């Protein structure tokens, strides 16, 4: 049985197009006691955000299925009054400086190059952040 933390529930929205990766992420997050909502598209993410209204943090890949990519989603989120303060952690394998800059300029909290980081590192940072805020 996975350990469930008795603290308050953290809802994390994970947007990742690769299935195996998504599964790994989900597993690890749940192992760390977060409640995971996931989608493979930007539209799906947008719907979740607007419908669920209790997302605490976002895990976002850049390349997604569908028309829009992570950047488009971030733009929309940051322009939305209710959603713009949700912390966003971008985890992607592309690392063009331009993209990174753009994400940072939008106000995402951190950008990770996937292959360079362990899951527990990323999740540790997310938890640290949420503890502080």
């Amino acid at each position, binding site marked *: 049985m996975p350990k469930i933390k008795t603290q308050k529930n953290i809802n994390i929205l994970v947007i990742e197009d*690769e299935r*195996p*990766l998504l599964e*790994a*992420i989900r*597993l*690890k997050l749940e*192992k760390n006691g977060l409640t995971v909502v996931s989608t493979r598209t930007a539209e799906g993410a947008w719907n979740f955000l607007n419908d669920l209204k209790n997302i605490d943090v976002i895990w976002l890949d850049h*390349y997604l299925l569908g028309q829009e990519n992570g950047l488009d989603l971030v733009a929309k989120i940051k322009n939305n009054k209710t959603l713009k303060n949700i912390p966003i952690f971008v985890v992607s*394998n*592309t*690392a*063009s*400086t*331009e993209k990174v800059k753009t994400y940072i300029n939008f106000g995402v909290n951190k950008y990770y*190059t*996937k*292959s*360079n980081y*362990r*899951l*527990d590192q990323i999740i540790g940072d997310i938890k640290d952040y949420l503890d502080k805020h």
Partner: protein
Amino acid sequence: MKIKNKINLTFFLLFTAVTIFSVTIMGIMSSRVFKNQIYQSIKLINNSKANAVRIFLNSEKEVVGMLAASTLIRDFLEQEPASSQYLNEKDRVAQRLDRSIKEVPQIYELFILNRQGEIISSTDKTNEGLIRINDDYFTKAQDEIFIKDLYNSETTKHLSYTVSAPIKDSLTGETLGVVVARMNPDNLFKTIGGDSDWSSTGENFLVNHNKFLISPSRFNDNSAILDKIINTKNVEDCFNSDELALLKNNNYANKTEKMVDYTDYRGKSVISVHSFIPETNWCLITKIDQTEVLAPIKNLSLIFASLSALFVLIFLLISLFISKKIIKPINDLKRAINNFKGGNFDYKITATTKDEVGDLARSFSDMAIRIKKIQNDVDNKIKEQTIDIIKKNTDIENQKKALLNILEDIEQEKTRSDALAGIVKGAEEAIVGENLEGKIITWNRGAEKLYGYGAEEVIGKSIKIIFPDNRLEELNNIIKATKNNTPIDHYQTQRKKKDGSIVDIALSVSPINDQEGKIVGFSAISFDVSKERQIDRAKTEFVSLASHQLRTPLSSINWYAEMLLAGDAGKLSAEQANFVQEIYAGNQRMVELVNALLNVSRLELGTFVVEPESVNITKSAESVLKELQPMIKKKNTKISFNYDKDLPPLEADPKLIRIILQNLLSNAVKYTPEKGIVNLTITKNTKNILIKVSDNGYGITKSQQDKIFDKLFRADNVKAKDTEGTGLGLYIVKSIINQTGGKITFESEENKGTTFFVELPLSGMKKKAGNKSIE
């Protein structure tokens, strides 16, 4: 006449007049005083002399009177001549007479007359018996003593006078006879003489009733006595006053109340005093010449005259002095005015007196100053205007010249620019000339071809027409860079063709200067780099895609291995864990390789980005060391880090710095056995930051040292030690360092250790546009 002379003349006349007046007055007054003094003196003399005469006459009267009273003589007169006594008596009388004549020497003759007027006794015997009954000395002496006036005696021919006294009978009072003494007038004369004692022109003389001179006189010979008649007024006045005198009870000395100017017998003016002598009806005149009286006055007058002349002279000098003093300022003023008239306004007026002249002078001075100022102002204005005119002329000349030059230049330029224009025109590259607002001035054939617009379509329009919407700000940046004289070189960007399609271009912009060096526009050369860009993009896309595609599975393996090892899928056996560990490790190597390959591709493509920031090298080094802690701990490596305290921050891309430090340090730790020593030293010299990484590890074989920076090269000695490495690290480091202006060298000895030396210029890294940064 000049004022000076007027003043002088006035003063002179004034003083002279005053002097003459005073002198005259003084003369008159002093002469009056003198005359009066003299008059008083003369009066005294006259008085005393008159008294002396009368006393003298009285004494003579007495003498004769005493004789007349003699009894002897009386008795004789009563004797009859026939008597015997008579002769006796006569002798006695004669003796008596002789005796008297001896006693009184001035008596010439002394004789006695009887009642019949017969001389009965005389000292001059020849006269005895003469009858003189009619003579005054007999007739007038019957009752009183009678002095007969001076006369020249017939008998004796002497000047004489007589004093006769009656001989009276003592009982009857009858006149018995007369005794007559004929006197020598010398003693008489003596009483009034001594004229020269008291003056040089003064005299006393007597005149008788008939105005005959009867005494010696200074200015007359003695022959004039009883010969000359003195009929002058003073004599007249004397005899006229006798009635007055008699009326005044014998007040004989005539005192003239007022001094009267008389003229004497010589015709000269005299001061004269007269006294009447009633006994004899004589007048005694005492007189002195007025000239003598006034002589001192004359002298005084001379003195006064000289003094006054002197005074006049002095006054003249004073007046000269005063007039000069008065005139001087006026003359100064005159001189000044003349100067001013002549245009010399600098002349300084020296009249500084506090009077009206001084005021006038000062007013003139002020006026002169003002006039001078006005003159100066006018002069200056004229000068200014002249300068202006000259300047304007010069300007016009210069402008003419400039125009000529410009025309020449234009000619030259035209020739040159025609040539240039030809070149530009014919160039394949798009060359666009724009002004500082981005308005198209020139548009060559290359531009026409590239963008599809004909020159006539775009000239005068804004260059923005070829800017894609998302790149419109670029124009401002370009203009800004141009204004700052920053050239833009091979800037990768996109433009929009006439047909709306986007074309990739490499843009080079350089400013256009006018003749004075002012930036007036810019010229933009754009190369169609679509193909290159395509290729590049293809390459980059490929690399990008490759890296993405490669990394995705790698990430998958990484995370699942991680989870397995973490026990998220259940606890692993030792062997299982081991195997998974190997999988994980192998995967890590792959990840590293992929990362390195990506960097290499970027380095080779030149598409990597350099974004310099202010980097604290020491902090970067510390961070890298922290990151390497797991490896350092595992191998128990001793790290020593020394750095200069005053290292300046470096303008550099922090990622690149990180890569350099990371590679060198991880190599040092990796290629040193356990418990090894790694030293990191960061210092600086004048030009560079110096990074030294040294270890005491495996070192690099000499034979392979030249290959150490080659791509994918791994030295044999480390391969043998089963260390992991991509063989790309040093290549990447070297590339980065070279491309950012630094230098890397090393020293190594197999099994002793290696030291790498990196120099990074203090001037930092230049910003480099690219599209990907090295990771």
